[in-house]
C-alpha cells in the first residue's frame, strides 16, 4: 500500500514555510502522544517531554492564580528558539504545536504571530 500525505501531514508541512521554522510537531498536551511531525522533529522536542513541561508550567501558573489554559511557551537558547503553542479546538483534550526555530533566521515576534495564526488552521 503506497504512503500518501494525510491532511494533518500536509498542515504540518506548510508550517515549515514560516521563516526560521526548522521542525514542528503536533502533540497531545495530556498524553504526550505525537500525532505528526514535519522537518527536523528533534528540534520540536519529544512529545512526552513537551507535554510534561507544559503541564508543569500550567500547574504552577494555576497555583499562582492564573486562570484558563496555557496559551504559549517560548524558550530561547543561544542558537534556537523552541515555541509551544496551544492549538484551539472546540472539543477534546488540548493539543500543543511545538516548533523549533533557528535564531539566525527567525524574527521571534513575527514567527510567533505567524505560528499562532497557522496553529488555528492545523486541524482544519
Amino acid at each position, binding site marked *: *500500500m503506497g*504512503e*500518501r500525505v494525510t491532511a494533518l501531514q500536509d498542515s504540518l508541512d506548510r508550517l515549515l514555510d514560516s521563516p526560521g521554522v526548522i521542525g514542528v510537531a503536533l502533540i497531545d498536551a495530556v*498524553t504526550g*502522544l505525537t500525532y505528526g511531525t514535519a522537518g527536523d522533529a528533534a528540534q520540536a522536542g519529544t512529545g512526552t517531554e513537551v507535554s510534561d513541561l507544559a503541564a508543569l508550567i*500550567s500547574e504552577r501558573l494555576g497555583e499562582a492564580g492564573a486562570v484558563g489554559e496555557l496559551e504559549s511557551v517560548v524558550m530561547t537558547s543561544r542558537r534556537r528558539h523552541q515555541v509551544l503553542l496551544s492549538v484551539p479546538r472546540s*472539543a*477534546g*483534550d488540548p493539543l500543543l504545536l511545538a516548533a523549533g526555530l533557528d535564531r539566525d533566521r527567525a524574527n521571534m515576534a513575527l514567527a510567533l504571530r505567524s505560528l499562532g495564526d497557522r496553529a488555528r488552521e492545523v*486541524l482544519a
Partner: protein
Amino acid sequence: MRTPSARNVPALLQALHEEGFTGTVRVSGAPGGTIHLRGGRVGAIETPGAPTATSTLLASGRIDDDAWLAACAAEPDADRLGHRLEATGLIGAAELEVVCTAAVYDGAFAMALRPPGDWELTDREPTLLARPGVEPRPLAEETSRRIALLARLRGPAVELARGRPAPVADRAHPASGSGLTPRHRELVDSANGRRTPRDIAFARGRGLYAVMLDLIRLEALGAVRWETTTVPEGRPSTAPRVPPRTVTSADEPSPRAGPLPRRRPGGGFPTGDFGARDGE
C-alpha cells in the same frame, strides 16, 4: 477461519502488518475488544474498556447526534464515514485523524490492562477508521510506555483503573477548586466516588489514559482522593515477541499456521497469549 498462533496480540498484529492484512481480530477476555486492520495497519479498536472515536466525538459534543445519524444514513459503509463527515463540514480531516488515532492508542492501552483470552480473525467489519492507521510496533511501544509511566507515578495501572476517585471536600485547600484548569475542574466534578476512570472517560468523551493521568495530577494537587485496592494480578507484557527476521526454513510454521489457543475448563487463559503470565 484462520488460526494464528502468534505468542501474543502485539506479535500477531506485527505478523498481520507484514502481510498487509485487512480484516478484524476479535480478542476475548475482560475487557477484550475488536481490532480493525486495513492494509496491515490498525485503523480502529473497539473495546468496552475505552471510548471509541465515535464515542469521543459524540460524548464530547464535537458532533451532535442528529448530524451524526444523518451522516451515517448517507454513507452506509462506515469505513468511508470519515470522508462523509469531512465533506459535510462536520469535522476537518486533520482533526478527525487526531481523534481516531488517539482512540486507537487508548483502546490498545485499555485492552492491555488485563491479559486477553483467545483471538480469532474475521473479515473486514466497517467502522470509523484512523487513516492511514497505526503500525503495530509503535502502538505496542506506546502502550508499554503508558503502563510503565502509570506504575512509576502512582502504581499498577490495573489497580488504578479499578479505583473510584472522589473530590476532596476541603474547599479551603487552595487546589480543591481555584487554580485548576477548566479541564481539571470538569474532571473533579465527574469524580463522584462512584465512577471508575473508565466511567469518567465515557461520560466526558475523553481517553481512558488521559483521564487517569489527569486524576493522578489532581490527586497530587489535593483535589481528588483516589484509593485503590491491591489485587494480585500479573500485568501482561505488551512487547512484540517476534524473533528478528532471518532466513527461515520452509518447514518452520508461520505465526498464523498453528492451532487456535483454547481455554481449558478451569485452566484460565491459554499460555502464550498477550504476554507471559506470572513471569512465565
